[in-house]
């Protein structure tokens, strides 16, 4: 397996882009990434594009060809990738595999999505699933998990709220974030209840946005003398769908983390910063545990003592996470990696983490039979 490097990153601001199309957002992200890498479109040998909901929301398929042709990329293999919230990170893994396997020396990876809905409407996805027909909604699934975590480990509503407070603080330092506003614990707790115990500010917003990466082989990276960040691990796996599993943790994520640490020859203690899938406050707390940042059941305490703040022992979601930066589903996994590359290069502005050398990105996708469909973990190293 060959070493793979990220040599260019770019993204749009996440938020409401009512007047902009998928290809318009995609173009901005791809242009930023190409210019950041100092690469012309004709040097790209393959393209991988993550998008989850365009067929359902915009009635648009083949988003990858649309977006990449916007920046003059054609006549090469282009792959459209759908893996729910892990669509973008799965596209990254496809691009990584292509270079690691020696097929190409330079590829582009993008994630593009528009999910902002009319005010008050909930995203209507998964209509074919029995649970959805019976009234299941995403915040409800995570509320069940939160209830169970509180019951089993004594995790408190205040600890849940602190995740949102921390991530909104980080988001206020990130010009690419959808929300630039800070919240207090009281404001999070007193916002309208969506699914008990999750309140409105405990849930990530629907968002529009795009992010892109340029990946290349070691040979190319050395020749170009660019600021390269190495992909030390790339893992994708699927769920157990075990009907009777303990829902206070994700077996799929523990399995992915184990694989990623092994591939990178690193452990949780070696990680300087983490971007996780905080679609809901409870998710981030469980990700701490599943990724081994703390023991099972200790996630509430970890946020409580401030360990995951920007100045803490192990900063989590310095970008603001999905909660504050926003969650354009297929773009989120790519944007996490954009943030980590900025942090490892020392370009993260007011939210820069000192001496960051190793970063981990985790995202999961989709609900299936009480489990998750997909989980990806990437570990990035600045050598």
């Amino acid at each position: 397996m060959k070493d793979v490097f990220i040599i260019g990153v770019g993204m749009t601001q996440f938020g409401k882009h009512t007047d902009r199309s998928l290809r318009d957002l995609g173009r901005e992200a791809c242009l930023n990434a190409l210019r950041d890498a100092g690469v012309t479109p004709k040097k790209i040998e393959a393209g991988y594009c993550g998008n989850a909901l365009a067929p359902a929301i915009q009635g648009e398929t083949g988003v990858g060809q649309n977006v990449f042709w916007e920046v003059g990329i054609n006549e090469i293999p282009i792959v459209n990738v759908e893996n729910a919230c892990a669509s973008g990170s799965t596209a990254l893994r496809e691009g990584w595999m292509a270079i690691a396997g020696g097929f190409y020396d330079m590829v582009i990876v993008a994630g593009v999505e528009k999910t902002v809905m009319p005010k008050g409407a909930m995203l209507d996805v998964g209509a074919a699933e029995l649970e959805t027909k019976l009234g299941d909604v995403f915040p409800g699934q995570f509320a069940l998990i939160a209830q169970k975590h509180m019951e089993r480990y004594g995790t408190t509503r205040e600890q849940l709220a602190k995740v949102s407070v921390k991530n909104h603080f980080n988001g206020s330092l990130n010009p690419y974030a959808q929300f630039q506003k800070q919240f207090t614990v009281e404001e999070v707790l007193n916002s309208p209840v969506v699914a008990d115990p999750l309140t409105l500010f405990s849930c990530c917003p629907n968002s529009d946005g795009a992010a892109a990466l340029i990946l290349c082989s070691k040979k190319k990276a050395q020749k170009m003398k660019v600021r390269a960040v190495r992909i030390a691990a790339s893992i994708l796996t699927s769920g157990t769908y075990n009907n009777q599993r303990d829902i206070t943790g994700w077996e799929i994520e523990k399995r992915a983390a184990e694989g990623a640490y092994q591939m990178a020859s690193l452990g949780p203690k070696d990680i300087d910063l983490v971007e996780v899938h905080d679609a809901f406050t409870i998710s981030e707390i469980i990700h701490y545990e599943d990724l081994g940042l703390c023991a099972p059941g200790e996630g509430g305490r970890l946020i409580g003592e401030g360990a995951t703040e920007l100045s803490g022992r192990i900063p989590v979601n310095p970008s603001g996470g999905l909660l504050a930066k926003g969650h354009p589903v297929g773009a989120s996994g790519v944007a996490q990696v954009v943030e980590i590359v900025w942090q490892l290069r020392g370009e993260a502005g007011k939210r820069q983490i000192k001496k960051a050398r190793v970063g981990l990105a985790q995202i999961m996708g989709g609900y299936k039979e009480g489990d998750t469909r997909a989980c990806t973990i990437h570990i990035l190293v600045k050598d």
Partner: protein
Amino acid sequence: MEKASPNQTNQIWALVEEGLFEYPIADNQVPALLANRCTNCGKTFFPKRPLCPYCFDKGELEEIRLDRRGIIYACTVIHRNSPTGIIAPYAYGYVDIPVNKVRVFSLFEGSDPSSFTTGQEVELVVEPIKVDNQGKQIIGYKFKHIS
């Protein structure tokens, strides 16, 4: 797939999904969810599966009716109307069926959605869960407190 059939009051109803339960319920029958069980590993599946994912060709699936009684594993109250037309507030969660060693996702029935908690014993009812946009009653299943 929703199948419309006329009932006695000449109203039109449809099932939330085919094959989940017997309906209409005969006079001498209690409502039951329809599941199947692998003859090789003994695992029970609700909804029914065409083959056992653990045993593949080694096991056969036999049809069973699940026990009506269950224990709440987890529950929550939703405070927004669902995109599929369930009116808030409503309660749902997971119910473990001890007799069959299977967990079922279900709505909870009752005027007080916040009255459901983990560990409570509940029992199955088959009844309308909503009215669709053509005025059709959609028949589903719920669990309720044991009276």
